[in-house]
């Protein structure tokens, strides 16, 4: 009996997957999407999949987007699964985002900051009206170019730190914990939290960050600086014994500046929330920096009473691959579990009715 059911299931699954492949391709009279087209024209989807898949490779992320039919959480899942098939060669030296080749750099705290406000390719200031010209297609005119003035672009946090108004980051070269190697444990120190947030779900972090602004957590944030561009990645392979550059990657960084009333040991000053994500992911970087700051409540001696300030709540629920696994497993067969529930509820009902009748 059980055997027959398995055979039947197998055939149905094969047919379902064949249909999935057909549905993925869509109308076969239309040209098929190439990975290059996805990489180039759906670049922000590719970036999001790399960030949440925690693996930087534009080509693989584009393939995942194609295979997942544009379902970006499924695509991140595919990328995470693929990365487990690859050996780990080592870790990079910490990247210097201060030396980023900037495509975008803005500050909401200083208008005339050294190096200026560089808008880059942004949706900001667009009117969010559907552009029907895009439906017709065509090549846009080339973007204007200007001669760079070569002005240095120091970090805004550095400008505040010079005045003593910004809590400095303690210099450290401690080997950071890695949650791909050891499971999360609490209390989680900041490097572990930042790793979890960097691969966390954008939607979840956005909602959590938003909650801190609406009063769940005592946040008064300002965007000190957002920068997006290319940073060099260096490793020091043991066979060479010195650092070499292995290429560059695109990242988005957000320094969120927050008021801090001070504590028994610290004077009133600004503190920072930090966001860093693979690719061009400004919303994610901003949300991450809000949540990072909220999660620092414990170490800064602030009250911990809002969801965004709870390490366990945020870190256990921010990973969309884990979350989707646990939520979606509910649709897999639970026939035996449910049978026992069924019997239990029937028995409880019988008891209640019997007692009512007595």
């Amino acid at each position: 009996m059980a055997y027959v059911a398995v055979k039947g299931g197998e055939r149905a699954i094969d047919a379902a997957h064949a249909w999935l492949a057909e549905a993925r391709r869509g109308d076969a009279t239309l040209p098929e999407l190439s990975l290059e087209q996805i990489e180039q024209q759906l670049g922000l989807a590719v970036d999001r999949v790399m960030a949440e898949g925690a693996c930087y490779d534009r080509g693989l992320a584009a393939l995942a987007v194609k295979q997942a039919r544009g379902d970006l959480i499924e695509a991140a899942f595919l990328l995470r699964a693929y990365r487990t098939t690859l050996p780990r060669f080592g870790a990079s030296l910490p990247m210097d985002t201060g030396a980023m080749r900037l495509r975008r750099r803005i500050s909401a705290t200083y208008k005339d900051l050294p190096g200026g406000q560089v808008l880059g390719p942004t949706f900001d200031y667009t009117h969010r009206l559907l552009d029907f010209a895009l439906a017709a297609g065509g090549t846009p005119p080339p973007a204007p170019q200007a001669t760079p003035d070569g002005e240095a672009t120091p970090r805004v946090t550095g400008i505040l730190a010079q005045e003593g108004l910004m809590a400095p980051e303690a210099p450290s070269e401690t080997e950071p914990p890695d949650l791909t190697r050891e499971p999360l444990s609490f209390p989680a120190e900041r490097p572990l939290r930042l790793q979890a947030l960097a691969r966390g779900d954008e939607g979840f972090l956005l909602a959590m960050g938003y909650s801190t602004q609406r009063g769940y957590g005592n946040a008064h944030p300002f965007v000190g600086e957002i920068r997006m561009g290319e940073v060099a990645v260096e490793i020091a392979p043991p066979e060479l014994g010195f650092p070499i550059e292995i290429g560059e990657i695109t990242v988005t960084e957000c320094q969120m500046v927050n008021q801090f009333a001070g504590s028994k040991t610290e004077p009133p000053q600004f503190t920072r929330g930090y966001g860093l994500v693979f690719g061009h992911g400004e919303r994610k970087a901003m949300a991450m920096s809000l949540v990072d700051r909220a999660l620092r409540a414990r170490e800064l001696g602030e009250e911990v009473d809002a969801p965004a300030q709870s390490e366990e709540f945020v870190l256990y629920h921010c990973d969309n691959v884990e979350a989707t696994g646990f939520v979606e497993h509910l649709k897999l067969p639970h026939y035996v579990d449910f049978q026992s529930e069924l019997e239990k509820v029937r028995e409880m009902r019988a008891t209640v009715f019997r007692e009512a009748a007595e």
Partner: protein
Amino acid sequence: MGILARADGAAIAARLDAAPPLPAATRLRGPETGLVMARGRQGGDGAPFNLGEMTVTRCSVRDAEGRVGHAYVAGRDQRQAELAARLDAALQDPVRRPALLEAVIEPLAAAQAERAAAMAARAAATKVQFFTMQTMR
């Protein structure tokens, strides 16, 4: 190494066509693709943290003259990694070095600088010039 890491295999091969031939080489390791954990710093300048992994391809070769070359390049381009390792070996030869620098490395570096400059020029065009800057100060 940085220049070869930023150039794809086809671009390196195209440059090598115009260069004196590389000595024959045997593979010691790879080319093989794996992962490197990319690290950032909290707050941009504090303690390191693990941002996420990236694909990296590495290759080590020994050429006919006994020189060993290593390469690690971001991405999955095995041809790039192998050519970079062979060039790493050949560039250690003081006789070959000047011609290879001239025919391969310098043109690749120039092309990369040009692309970077074009990007910087686009960014510069989006730099906000506040009209009130002089009077506000």
